[in-house]
């Protein structure tokens, strides 16, 4: 996923959760980032700095990487994501749309493209902490 789009999504999610939970200030947002996304953490951090909104001036953004793991649906082999051997174009395609892994990556044992991304595909906001109005 594109870093700026992701940063926008993180800020919008934090803002929505803050509204839902009556938080006047968001103190910490923890985001898990799947390895398959191949996003540059520094660029997300830079984008998050630019996108801070009222109530998030001092928010600490914690970004944690989650390794990617694949499991073949045909022969059950499990393996990890390796960028070695992928061209820049392929790497970029998977970066923008991680499901494109199914186009370019095959099971190392049987060659099937029918595999499951068991871990490390997506990006998700693990928790949002803040200060409540009535606190």
């Amino acid at each position, binding site marked *: 996923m594109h870093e700026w789009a992701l940063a926008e999504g993180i800020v919008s999610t934090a803002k929505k959760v803050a509204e839902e939970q009556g938080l006047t200030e968001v103190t910490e947002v923890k985001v898990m980032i799947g390895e398959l996304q191949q996003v540059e953490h520094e660029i997300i951090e830079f984008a998050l700095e630019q996108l801070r909104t009222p109530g998030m001036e001092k928010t600490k953004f914690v970004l944690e990487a989650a390794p990617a793991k694949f499991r073949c649906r045909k022969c059950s082999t499990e393996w990890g994501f390796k960028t070695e051997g992928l061209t820049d174009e392929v790497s970029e395609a998977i970066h923008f749309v991680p*499901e494109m892994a199914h186009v370019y990556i095959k099971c190392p044992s049987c060659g099937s493209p029918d595999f499951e991304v068991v871990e490390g595909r997506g990006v998700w906001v693990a928790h949002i902490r803040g200060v409540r109005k009535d606190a």
Partner: protein
Amino acid sequence: MRDPRLEIVAERFTGIRRIIAVSSGKGGVGKSIVATTLALTLAKTGGRVGLLDLDFTSPSTHVILGVEGLYPEEEKGIVPPITHDLSYMSIVYYSADEPVPLRGADVSNALVELLAITRWGELDYLIIDMPPGIGDATLDLLRLIPRISFLVVTTPSRVAFESVRKLLLLLRETSTPVLGVVENMATKSLGYIRDKVEGLHFRYLGSLAFDPEIEDAIGDPAKLMATNFAKEIKGLSKKVSA
């Protein structure tokens, strides 16, 4: 646990006046050619038009447009390149036109990803070429895109219409606006589709005659726009843009 992509998808469509999904319950009824020709027609009338191919496993609008060597620009997301006056987005930029073997959940994830990263900017119309059926892509659009309306394509075939009928019922159940049903590849007027569509209280938008010239015009938008089919799409575009 929240998916941050979902929060920005709706924002990506705020600059678009009309969003029209060209859909059908059945494959092979000509959705892609109708969607592409409709987009080209609307662009010819001076509108700012986008075309989004959401048929990930069988994309074909790039073949109809004859698109080669195009790639989106990166600018705080992805900006669709312009071809034949259309802002054009397709999975083929990333799949290199190789087979895309995706299961349902993967289709859904790829779709959300593409909608989240694409920055359309200001458009009068976004035409979406949908995959056939009422699976993941259709359900995701109903869930994620506000103000979407559907243009439903069928052929005169009773078999095709049986699947189209199910799509129409789903759209009614979900209170989704339906612009109407167009009967494509008509060879003679049987009145069957009109009766069925009107019997379900949907709008019958007319028929598009089977045009043997279309195959020669694939990959050449100028030639495509000179066909009788394109003339009939012009009439359709007036009905759906009114």
